[in-house]
């Protein structure tokens, strides 16, 4: 940083991402509250602990290999770009954009480094996306999965599979962007659809909670035990989602030289594909899609609080793929359609396949994400997916294929396979008697004994 303007730009960018990380921490606070609110009293503490432990597990594995995977596999591998991993190249004006030059955990940039201010905060922003990915799965499987199995699954989705899909479809050099015209600015697919699919794969093997279905197969409602906690949790998730939207942008970037426009200087915020957008515009769309989701959720669920709050989230998720470009009214309508589909599909799948998705995670994240990707393909049909030459334009077929890859290939399939392996090893599900007694039984029993001892004490 040899002049004041460069220093200002660098330090502003560093601080910008740092703030998004702090905001996104609220997503995890929200998920913790949400899950505890949705779980039954006898499982509360283990439910909370399961979701808490994903923080260290995903963090250290994201450092070891998750971040490296993101920078390693934009080629496919071998699908586009001609190699197994992305080699170092001066693609956006800075030499060394391959995995080993940037994200290898032994690399000079992966620590305090006076020559670099951005890597750490960028790594952290992506890490918070990874926590979210694992947390989405966490809610669906409450009250019957072992903490060990969940830890393995959290690492798989948080540090491997979402990272691969981000390399493919959420990287300026990703093969899906280049060949399919895949566009997913705020991660309808690369986080939400993939995690919804992964959760569904796990649920198909894990099975429902005891008592969820009657002997004739009719689903019973095991509704949230604390709607107020669910409400506050979801509002914190919404708050963190603001940070998420900001973190998906580059706040200040000169597109003139980047796009090879001689003598042109064009400073703007960009999305992750380095195409221009504005923070003002995406803020309007965020609020409109939240509103569209609330309205549709309230209507379709006939005023059910759980689905109204979840509808707000589903609405944002559905509109997120194109919220860098949509008109606010388009965001509102797309959010409504996504929420409606998510709600309906949740109950169809529950009845037809006996899937017990305890918090509606597959619906809110998976189905809404997929619907959002498909709609984006039509509404943004013809827009360039990148400012660089040689990229396919956004189109419905590319987005539908993208949705299948996200939800099915990188979501459902790995979730199902890993759950099968863990099930085969007898490590997936807690024993039936523990589920009946409650995961917290021993803790509660001890607390009762302590309480009695204190109450009977004379001094």
């Amino acid at each position, binding site marked *: 940083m040899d002049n004041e303007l460069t220093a200002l730009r660098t330090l502003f960018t560093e601080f910008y991402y740092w703030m998004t990380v702090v905001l996104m921490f609220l997503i995890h606070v929200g998920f913790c509250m949400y899950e505890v609110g949705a779980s039954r*009293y*006898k499982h509360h503490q283990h439910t909370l602990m399961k979701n808490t432990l994903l923080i260290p*597990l995903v963090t*250290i*594995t994201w*450092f*070891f290999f998750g971040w490296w995977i993101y920078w390693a596999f934009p080629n496919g591998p071998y699908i586009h770009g001609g190699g197994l991993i992305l080699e170092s190249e001066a693609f956006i004006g800075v030499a060394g954009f391959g995995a080993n030059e940037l994200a290898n*955990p*032994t*690399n*000079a*940039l*992966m*620590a*305090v*480094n*006076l*020559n*670099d201010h951005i890597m750490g905060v960028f790594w952290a922003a992506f890490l918070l996306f990874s926590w979210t990915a694992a947390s989405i799965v966490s809610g669906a499987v409450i009250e019957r999965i*072992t*903490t*060990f199995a969940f*830890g393995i699954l959290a690492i798989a989705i948080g540090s491997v599979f979402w990272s691969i899909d981000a390399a493919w479809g959420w990287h300026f050099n990703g093969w899906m962007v280049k060949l399919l015209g895949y566009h997913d600015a705020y991660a309808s697919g690369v986080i939400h659809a993939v995690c919804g699919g992964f959760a569904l794969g796990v649920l198909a093997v894990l099975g429902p909670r005891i008592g969820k279905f009657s002997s004739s197969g009719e689903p019973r409602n095991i509704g949230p035990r604390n709607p107020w906690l669910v409400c506050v949790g979801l509002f914190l998730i919404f708050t963190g989602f603001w940070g998420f939207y900001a973190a998906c942008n580059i706040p200040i970037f000169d597109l003139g030289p980047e796009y090879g426009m001689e003598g042109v200087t064009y400073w703007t915020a960009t999305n992750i594909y380095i195409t221009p957008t504005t923070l003002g515009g995406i803020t309007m769309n965020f609020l409109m899609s939240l509103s569209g989701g609330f309205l549709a959720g309230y209507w379709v669920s006939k005023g059910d609080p759980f689905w109204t709050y979840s509808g707000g989230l589903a609405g944002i998720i559905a509109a997120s793929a194109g919220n860098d470009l949509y008109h606010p009214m388009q965001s509102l309508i797309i959010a409504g359609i996504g929420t409606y589909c998510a709600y309906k599909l949740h109950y169809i799948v529950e009845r037809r396949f006996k899937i017990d998705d305890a918090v509606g995670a597959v619906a809110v994240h998976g189905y809404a994400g997929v619907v959002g990707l498909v709609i984006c393909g039509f509404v943004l049909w013809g827009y360039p997916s990148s400012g660089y030459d040689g990229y396919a334009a956004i189109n419905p077929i590319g987005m539908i294929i993208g949705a299948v890859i996200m939800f099915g290939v990188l979501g459902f399939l790995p979730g199902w396979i890993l759950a099968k392996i863990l099930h085969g090893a007898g*490590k997936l599900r*807690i*024993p*039936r*008697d*523990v589920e*009946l*007694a*409650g995961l*917290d*039984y*021993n803790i*509660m*029993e001890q*607390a*009762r004994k*302590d*309480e009695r001892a204190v*109450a009977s004490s004379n001094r």
Partner: protein
Amino acid sequence: MKELLLQAIDKGGIYMATVTNWVDHLTASEVAGQIYPYVGTELWWVIAGIIYWLWWTFATATGEDEEHQKLARKKHGANEYKNNIPEW
């Protein structure tokens, strides 16, 4: 005491610091990026971290198994936990 300690470190040549003088460091023709201790040993730290992570995983998995087996043997009913809710 402080001088003795510094002398001992000097004689032993066991400096941990990568930077021992900020002015020299920042006015050098090319500022070295990494400033954490033991630059060059990153691989060993990462290996240590991976070993710790794997050990933790197996240690806690074993503990969880034992806890579940112990609780399962008691065959508590689905509503028995209500007897253990302490007073507010």
